[in-house]
């Protein structure tokens, strides 16, 4: 693992929160992203130092609203949440315990909090007769490319009779039973990370990992009010994608192997924390690892603007989106595609079919426009 440490430099590895882990599955073919993430490099800082700061930001209004809604759902020891679970799962739940796992006697170390979560989950799993319990802020962890990443606790685990449900609280509205598909999909991907982490924990403790339900409870405001409503969301598909992606990341060694020994993404911060590494040097370091840019990266990856610029310089057809690339039958550069179209480049056998279509398109375009 010291190889990955060297790539990152002296800074501590950046922890992956569930959102970051879920985003790993967004572009599995990108070696650059796989290496930077596996090494725990702060991609946002790298992108900023390269002069291509990430276009992401969250409005303070959205943050306030999200926090307020979460507080509302968890109010009074989770009374409202319990009501929702009772209705959704059809369970006779007169009462449920509420344990805030963030409360470990003033010691905020992640390691300690995780052991605390471990201990309580172990006890609940052993003693199946125990009353229903809500575990707020469980601190879970997941192994990512050989590192243990602690997951930011913005979730509740609900236990009844030794079975666990992950409860994800989101503040986007469900209007007349419908929510924005993108947001539901993102929530499902994130919740899948927690499901995986919790079932891994159970397995480590010697319990049956399938005691974690693959149906997560999504709690959202209903219609335009602040009143929460709960829905079950099946995350089996997201789990499968996530498992595959994590397995791939443990094989990141194969990508790292051929890279030069001296390669590092260290920002060379001075004592004041200001990055001092020459930008050109960092740029060539980042370029040592190939990226696979797609316009979707603009929604998920901190390095998106840098990679887009690189794709533009190379004249890559990736720039125009996957649909266009598919339509071009995988022709990689704009120049090549245009040369095939105007006939100035003779196609090899593999490209004969797409070249014929492009030439015809070129002819038709000239004929009618």
């Amino acid at each position, binding site marked *: 693992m010291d190889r990955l440490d060297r790539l990152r430099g002296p800074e501590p590895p950046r922890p992956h929160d569930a959102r970051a882990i879920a985003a790993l599955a967004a572009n599995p073919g990108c070696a650059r992203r796989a290496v930077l993430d596996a090494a725990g490099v702060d991609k946002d800082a790298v992108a900023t130092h390269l002069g291509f700061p990430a276009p992401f930001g969250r409005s*303070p209004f959205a943050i306030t609203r999200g926090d307020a809604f979460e507080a509302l759902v968890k109010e009074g020891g989770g009374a409202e949440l319990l009501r929702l679970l009772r209705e959704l799962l059809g369970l006779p739940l007169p009462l449920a315990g509420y344990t805030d796992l963030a409360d470990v006697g003033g010691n905020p170390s992640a390691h300690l909090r995780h052991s605390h979560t471990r201990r309580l989950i172990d006890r609940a799993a052993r003693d199946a007769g125990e009353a229903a319990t809500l575990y707020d802020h469980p601190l879970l962890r997941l192994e990512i490319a050989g590192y243990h990443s602690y997951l930011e606790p913005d979730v509740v685990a609900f236990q009844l009779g030794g079975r666990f449900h992950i409860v994800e609280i989101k503040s986007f509205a469900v209007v007349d039973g419908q929510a924005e598909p993108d947001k539901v999909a993102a929530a499902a991907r994130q919740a899948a990370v927690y499901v995986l982490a919790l079932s891994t924990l159970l397995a480590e403790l010697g319990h049956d990992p399938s005691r974690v339900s693959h149906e997560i409870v999504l709690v959202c405001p209903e219609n335009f009010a602040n009143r929460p409503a709960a829905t079950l969301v099946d995350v089996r598909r997201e789990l499968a994608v996530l498992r595959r992606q994590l397995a791939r990341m443990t094989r990141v060694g194969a990508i790292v192997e051929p890279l030069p020994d001296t390669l590092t993404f260290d920002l060379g911060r001075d004592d004041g924390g200001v990055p001092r590494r020459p930008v050109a040097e960092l740029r060539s370091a980042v370029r040592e690892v190939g990226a696979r840019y797609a316009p979707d990266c603009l929604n998920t990856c901190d390095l998106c603007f840098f990679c887009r610029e690189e794709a533009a310089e190379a004249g890559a057809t990736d720039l125009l989106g996957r649909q266009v690339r598919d339509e071009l039958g995988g022709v990689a550069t704009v120049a090549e595609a245009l040369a095939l179209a105007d006939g100035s480049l003779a196609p090899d056998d593999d490209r004969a079919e797409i070249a014929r279509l492009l030439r015809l398109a070129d002819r038709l*375009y000239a004929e009618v426009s």
Partner: protein
Amino acid sequence: MSTLSALARLRALREGRAQRLATVRHCHLSDRPMVLIPLRLAGEAAAPLAAMAGTDPDHPRLLVVPQPRDRDLRFAFTAELAEVVLPYVEGLQKATETVERRGAEPYERCVDAPQLLVPNPAGVTFVQLLGRSTRFRRAEGPYAVHPSVPVLGRWLTFFGRRAQYPGSVLLAAATDLLSLHWATGQSALEDANLASLLGWIDPPPGMSGASAAREAEDPLVWPPAGPATDPGFDAEVLAPAIRAYQEAPGERAAAAVAAAVRSQLEPTWRLMWRAVDLLRALPPGGGAAARWEGDRTAFTAFAAQLAEGAPPQPRRDGAVAAAARLARMERARAVYDAQRAFDDPLVMAGHRLAGEAFTGTVVAAEPDRTEGEGRGRKLRPLLVVRTGDPVRLAAGARLATPARRGQRADVVDVAGGEVTLKIVKGMGRGTTATPGAVPQVGEVVCYAALTDEYQPPAALPAPEETPWTHGGPPPEYVPAEDDAEEDWS
């Protein structure tokens, strides 16, 4: 996405400027459209923050909610929006024309209809949500609102639902209309940014489309076209202004919020009218007017329903209504695709590349060929067309041709670059072809497996006979009493 539009994007990238995807305008553009740019408070489903609206490019109306979390201020905003939208909509109901129909009673149709233009598809969604959150309100009882609010809600719901209808432009997103006519050198995802899309289509003098589009991505130069606002603006400008209003509500504090949102809306307002001008400069295609007639009919019918005191649109369609609507939308999609191809050789070229249409020269024709005997003898002219297009049509496929719109032909055979066709409709009565109806040898013709023919509506059971597979007959829709009191927090 066809190979043709992919090639157009490649060319746009090479030229540094958007390339035409159409030779004519495929959407009706009103002489007096209403531009509406809504802004939403971040993190909320449909909490309006502000809107800029109007029909006069030089006199936009700015509506602001100085504290978007205040329910009363929100309803004041919707009442104010109603003051802008309703006179526009109602003014167009006055002039009508009588439409004669064969075998049916003539009916009245408005000679013009409203057209709401929003910047992007997210704006259309916001209009739908705003309609949903206001149409059930009441002017009396608890939580009473201004009487115009539920009326606005019903209209916005009508516009929002109609926007899902292929080819309808009563409510349309500027980015959609522009993307229909131009291909840029960026991805479809980036085209959803109005400023960047217009950068490609109409870059400032001395600037390439690519650099104009990049510049347009800077929220400080071109604020987002809504409904979402720039998080940086929210944190640095809007939040302090709203806080100041919260602490000391009054005209000055409200004016400060208004000035802040105006700075975000004005650039988009100018972009919207530039988009209108660019679209207006294109010559209109024939189908656009026909589809606008459909829009006018829908508008007239809804205005009548509203006048008769129909209840607000239900939260969700019943099974039969949903199936009927889906079937109508599918037919509209087929007609829309066919009409655009018939109006525009560039659109037809996309179908030709896909093998669903072809252009070629007639090499043999039997205009007076007949089939059958005696009284059953029918005129069925044969045509052989030589083409270089990659035809992918099976024998028996039903074709139409832009040059002779009523004509229909069936594919008999496709072999060695020659297509044999049998004309089955639109060639004349009796056993002799009408002169000119059958193409002659040497004529260049185009045939396509597309149809804009009238298709009868799908046969569906009455709502009260909904089968159990679809939940059985739905309960009769009665607007619930508490709908009007629904929270909006």
